[in-house]
C-alpha cells in the first residue's frame, strides 16, 4: 500500500453501438486525459475497438478473451494489478492518474463494479469514480425495450450520455421518460458527434478526505428533492430520507438485510447518511447488488441539509419494505443500546 491517493477508475458502459468507443476516442484527445490508462473489453474473436482509439499504445489494453462481466475475477483484476505493477516500476513514460474501463456492449456492469470494490489486491490503490452509460438517441428506446442488460446499464449509471443526437430531431420524449424512469438520479448529458467535455463526465462519486474532492450534490442528484417514485416495467427509483441520525450498527444491519433479501434486485444504492456517532462527518454509502463499498467519510456536510438521503434503484423491491426495514431496525437498535 503506497499511501498515495487512490487512482480513480471510470467504467464506461452502454449497449452495442451506443457510441462508447467514439466518445472515448474524443475524450482521449483532451489534454486532461493524457495520463489515462484505458482497458477496452471487446466481445468477439478479433477486437477492433482498441484500433479505433488514438492513444499511446502502452496505455490501451484490449481484453478480447470474452465478455468482461463473465471473466471479471481473472481478466480484469489481473489486468489492473499488472497495470499498477508496471506503473510502480516506471514502465510508462508518464504515470497514469486515471483508469477508464470500456466494457463490451453486452456486459453487465455489476460484476465489474464488484471486482473494483472488493478485490483485496486493488483496494486502496484504485477507487471507483463512477459509471458512465452511453445511450444511442436513435435506437435507445427500442434497445431499452428489448434488452434487459441495456436497462441495467442505465440503472447503475452515475452519468448517462446521449449519443447520436445529431441524427435525430432532438431527444425523443419517450426515450427521455424511459431514462428518467430507469434512473432519475443520474444526470443526462449530450455528446455532439461523440464529443463531450471530460470534466462533466468524471469525478462522479464522492470520495473521502484521503482521496480528494467530492460532489455529493450532483452524485445524489435528485435525492435532495422531494421523494418520488418512477416506474419502469420492473425497475424503480426512489429516495428514502430520514432526518433523525442513524446509528452505525443500524446502518450495517440495514445493508445486511438489503443484501440478504434483495440480492441482485438491488441494482444500485447510493446515499449520504447522518451517523449518530459521527454527526459532523457524514458517511457516503454505495452499493451494487449485494456488494457495498466501504463507507467514505466526508470531512463535513456538503450543505446545511443534514438529513440522510439514500437513492435506491431496484427491481421489484417496494419502497414500503425498505422504509419499514430501516425504521424497525433503527428502533430495535435504539431499544437495545438505549436512546
Amino acid at each position, binding site marked *: 500500500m503506497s499511501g498515495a491517493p487512490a487512482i480513480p477508475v471510470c467504467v464506461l458502459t452502454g449497449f452495442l453501438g451506443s457510441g462508447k468507443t467514439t466518445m472515448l476516442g474524443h475524450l482521449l484527445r483532451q489534454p486532461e486525459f493524457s495520463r489515462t490508462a484505458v482497458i477496452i473489453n471487446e466481445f468477439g474473436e478479433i477486437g477492433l475497438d482498441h484500433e479505433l482509439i488514438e492513444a499511446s499504445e502502452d496505455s490501451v489494453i484490449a481484453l478480447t478473451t470474452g465478455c468482461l462481466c463473465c471473466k471479471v475475477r481473472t481478466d480484469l483484476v489481473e489486468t489492473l494489478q499488472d497495470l499498477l505493477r508496471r506503473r510502480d516500476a516506471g514502465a510508462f513514460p508518464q504515470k497514469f492518474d486515471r483508469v477508464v474501463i470500456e466494457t463490451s456492449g453486452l456486459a453487465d456492469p455489476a460484476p465489474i463494479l464488484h471486482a473494483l470494490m472488493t478485490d483485496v489486491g486493488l483496494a486502496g490503490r484504485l477507487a471507483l469514480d463512477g459509471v458512465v452509460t452511453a445511450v444511442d438517441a436513435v435506437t435507445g428506446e427500442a434497445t431499452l425495450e428489448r434488452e434487459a442488460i441495456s436497462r441495467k446499464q442505465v440503472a447503475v449509471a452515475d452519468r448517462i450520455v446521449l449519443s447520436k443526437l445529431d441524427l435525430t430531431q432532438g431527444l425523443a420524449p419517450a426515450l427521455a421518460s424511459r431514462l428518467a424512469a430507469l434512473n432519475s438520479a443520474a444526470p443526462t448529458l449530450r455528446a455532439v458527434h461523440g464529443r463531450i467535455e471530460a470534466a462533466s463526465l468524471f469525478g462522479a462519486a464522492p470520495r473521502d478526505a484521503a482521496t480528494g474532492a467530492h460532489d455529493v450534490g450532483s452524485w445524489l442528484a435528485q435525492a435532495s428533492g422531494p421523494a418520488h417514485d418512477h416506474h419502469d416495467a420492473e425497475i424503480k427509483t426512489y429516495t428514502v430520507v430520514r432526518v433523525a441520525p442513524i446509528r452505525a450498527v443500524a446502518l450495517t*444491519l440495514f445493508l445486511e*438485510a438489503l*443484501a440478504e433479501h434483495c440480492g441482485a434486485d438491488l441494482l444500485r444504492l447510493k446515499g449520504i447518511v447522518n451517523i449518530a456517532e459521527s454527526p459532523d462527518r457524514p458517511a457516503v454509502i454505495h452499493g451494487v447488488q449485494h456488494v457495498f463499498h466501504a463507507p467514505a467519510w466526508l470531512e463535513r456536510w456538503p450543505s446545511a441539509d443534514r438529513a440522510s438521503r439514500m437513492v435506491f434503484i431496484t427491481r421489484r423491491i*417496494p419502497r414500503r419494505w425498505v422504509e419499514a426495514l430501516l425504521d424497525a431496525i433503527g428502533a430495535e437498535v435504539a431499544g437495545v443500546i438505549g436512546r
Partner: protein
Amino acid sequence: MSGAPLDLACELLAASLEAWRVAGRVEPTADGAIAIRATRQIRIEPAPNNSTFRWMVAIEGRRRPAISLLAVLRQVRQALDPDHAATSVRIAVAPLLPS
C-alpha cells in the same frame, strides 16, 4: 425484550410479505404478539425479559428463538418463501466509524 415496538415489527412483516409476493395477512394479536396467516401459521412474540433472545417465533406451533428482527425475518422467509436463496452482504474492509 424485543427492543423494537410491535407496530413497527408488524409493519415490517406485512411489507415483507408484499415484497416477497407471498399471499397472507399480518396482524397484531390481543395478547401482544404478531400473527401471520399465510401458507403456514406463524406467531411472533417478544421474548421474556430474562431471555438472551429478543423474539420467539412459532411456526406451526414449533417455537424457536430469534436474536433480532433480522433473524425473525430470516425465519419467516424460510417458512413462507423457501425457494429464496439468501445472499450475504460484502462490504469492503473499513472502520464502522471515521478515525
